[in-house]
């Protein structure tokens, strides 16, 4: 050990922000203070609210804040993951609007960066950054939910085009979005995860029918998409024909991993929950204290874990099936926190229309939190992935 110590290079662990990172944080903070709309926008799952949120994406882009980690030529700032986390912290702290284009910027964006051609990146990333293309997801089908390899919607190559027929469902944001990305069966004789391709489809093409599905809150946050002889140019194929499964798995990794749900979101909820408890302490059971602590402890742990992961990735590491651990953790945490808030609010928790009451926001978040363990691959599927790929258990 004495010998080892002398030979080793020391690149110190340092869990503090550098001066440059602090300066960057100030820059984000002051831009958001000047630009975040003073009044909250309408729900992004209404037609008018959707356009308001699109406008906000354009405003973000005017400050070059669409996606700070992208290269400058595609509308980003070329920053690293730590800076992205700082941006997110300030974003949630400022209570800025929900990103209507999160399917685009957080999921398709990183996928394009990894698998797209220069032309595809140039076209799609820039249009994403400007808010001109708002994206929806097209994975699930009526017969292919958790079992995604059962996809049957076909895309048949005819010259320079694909002819698409079939149906997608639970397609997030599709009610008002401009484009969808997803998996289609391009080899009709193929089975399971072979013969699938990752294709980008505009939703305004002839033959596309979008049927919005009202969610628990009554608004159409997802939709069914019907494809009836829809013709899409072959340039819209991402990666190689038949390589769709591999690419989709990478996208799903981004979704479950650190991109879609940055820790700031949950830390902000935990902080609000603490304040809610303090305001209502006199009519709460002291048993609630344990839930308050759990909320803080878990959201803080999630943040530490993400900084740990981001540091490893910056040092050249990659994230694999570990992202399934995080997806379970944050989705259960989010639900627990909202459930706790409702318990604190007691009988007034059901007041869903009162603008002067906290309840309206909490009950909406509470309902949304039921989705967390379902979307991006149910938590049961994530547990199978953990058991099979991380613990080495048989299929």
């Amino acid at each position, binding site marked *: *050990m*004495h010998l*080892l*110590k002398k030979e*080793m*290079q*020391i*690149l*110190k*662990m*340092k*869990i*503090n*922000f550098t001066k440059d990172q602090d300066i960057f944080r100030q820059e984000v903070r002051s831009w958001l203070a000047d630009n975040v709309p003073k009044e909250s926008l309408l729900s992004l799952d209404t037609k008018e609210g959707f356009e308001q949120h699109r406008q906000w994406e354009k405003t973000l882009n005017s400050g070059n804040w669409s996606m700070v980690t992208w290269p400058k030529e595609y509308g980003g700032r070329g920053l690293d993951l*730590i800076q992205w986390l700082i941006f997110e*912290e300030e974003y949630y*702290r400022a209570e800025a609007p929900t990103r209507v284009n999160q399917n685009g910027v957080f999921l398709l964006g990183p996928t394009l960066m990894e698998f797209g051609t220069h032309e595809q990146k140039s076209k799609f990333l820039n249009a994403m950054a400007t808010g001109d293309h708002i994206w929806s997801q097209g994975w699930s089908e009526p017969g292919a939910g958790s079992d995604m390899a059962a996809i049957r919607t076909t895309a048949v190559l005819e010259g320079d085009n694909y002819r698409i027929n079939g149906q997608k469902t639970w397609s997030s944001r599709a009610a008002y979005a401009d484009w969808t990305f997803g998996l289609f069966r391009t080899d009709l004789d193929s089975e399971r995860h072979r013969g699938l391709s990752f294709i980008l489809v505009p939703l305004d093409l002839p033959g596309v029918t979008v049927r919005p599905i009202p969610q628990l809150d009554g608004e159409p946050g997802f939709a069914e998409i019907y494809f009836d002889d829809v013709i899409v140019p072959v340039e819209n194929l991402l990666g190689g024909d038949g390589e769709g499964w591999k690419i989709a798995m990478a996208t799903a990794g981004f979704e479950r991993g650190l991109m879609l749900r940055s820790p*700031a979101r949950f*830390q*902000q909820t*935990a*902080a609000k929950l*603490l304040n809610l408890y*303090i305001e209502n302490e006199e009519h709460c059971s002291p048993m609630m*204290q*344990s839930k*308050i*602590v759990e909320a*803080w*402890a878990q959201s*803080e*742990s*999630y*943040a*530490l*874990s993400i*900084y*740990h992961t*981001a*540091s*490893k990735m*910056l*040092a050249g590491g990659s994230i694999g099936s*570990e992202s399934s*651990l*995080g997806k*379970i*953790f944050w989705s259960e945490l989010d639900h627990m926190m909202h459930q706790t808030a409702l318990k604190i609010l007691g009988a007034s928790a059901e007041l869903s229309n009162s603008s002067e009451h906290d309840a309206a926001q909490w009950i909406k978040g509470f309902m949304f939190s039921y989705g967390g363990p379902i979307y991006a691959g149910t938590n*049961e599927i*994530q*547990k*199978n992935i*953990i*058991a*099979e790929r991380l*613990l*080495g*258990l*048989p*299929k």
Partner: protein
Amino acid sequence: MNFNFTEEQTQFKDVIKSLLADECTPSSIRDGWSAKKSFNQSRWNKISELGVLSSNLSEEDGGLGMDQVALALMVEEMGYAGLPEPVAEQTFLVNDLMPLFPEGLKDEIKSIHESGNQYIALAHPLSPNPLFLGHAAALLLFDESTYQFILKDDLNFKPLASNDPSRELSAIDSIKKSISSSENFETLNSAVTARGSLMTAALLIGLAQKMLDLSSAYVLDRNQFGKPIGSFQAIKHMLADIAVEIEFAKPTVYRAAHSLLDKNPKSNLHCSHAKYMSARAAELACKNSIQAHGAMGYTWEMDLHIYMRKAWSLMACWGNEDKQQDIIYKTLTTSKDELGVLYTF
């Protein structure tokens, strides 16, 4: 911001891991149980020869100046191996406090270190029954307002049986002579409490991982309905749940260790956080591991309980989950403006 280990930190961990894989096997632990001698002198000497016992003393005190992060990583491995000898206690609870002790006491401790690989035991209201006092040269005894340094020959004590046979505990009957002090008590007491939380947290992470590994191996091996029980989702999900808890407890341990190194004013909160998360992970690991083993897990023959017993003891020592919860709650409600998105680091 670089929440990565240094090469040095991970190399220390690897060295101790491979030593313990050879020296601290389940059968060697069982040998200690049957001989009622869980302190294995030859293992202790091997660990000592590596420099581990004094690794975190400063170089001028004859150590390697190892930091708390590297130490926490090593202690995690000691948990994983179920190491009976009090190496974690010696390093975290005694050595790491050296800079805080008054000069006279420091000299006493130093002279014990210099005389070889001797052990100094510690007792505190949060962990009142000192470990392996029979093998110690001296005892550091904390009470509510003072601390004492007592040479073993000046102590009368009697053995206490632990539910974990590899923890040989003692009760102190009387003290003939001691150096007693209350100098710097608050600081020392708070420092030893934080280190006790962090040390048990690191051990519990290792123990939880060991239980998960034993369970994963068992469910691959055991067949029912014509296939390994590990292919059933009910079993997979129980084990995956443990993996999730461990994954999110780990960084809290590393952050707490870094906070001690960095003299972060919130290091006590961070150590409580680490113990809170690790105790929960270990508790689930015990529950789900024995369930995955079925009736075999309930036998003396299966190795699982070697680690489960240690985990039960360590969850309770140095403040259990509920005690840590109270500490966190008090901190949250008295300084709520300083907590949240911007105050993680």
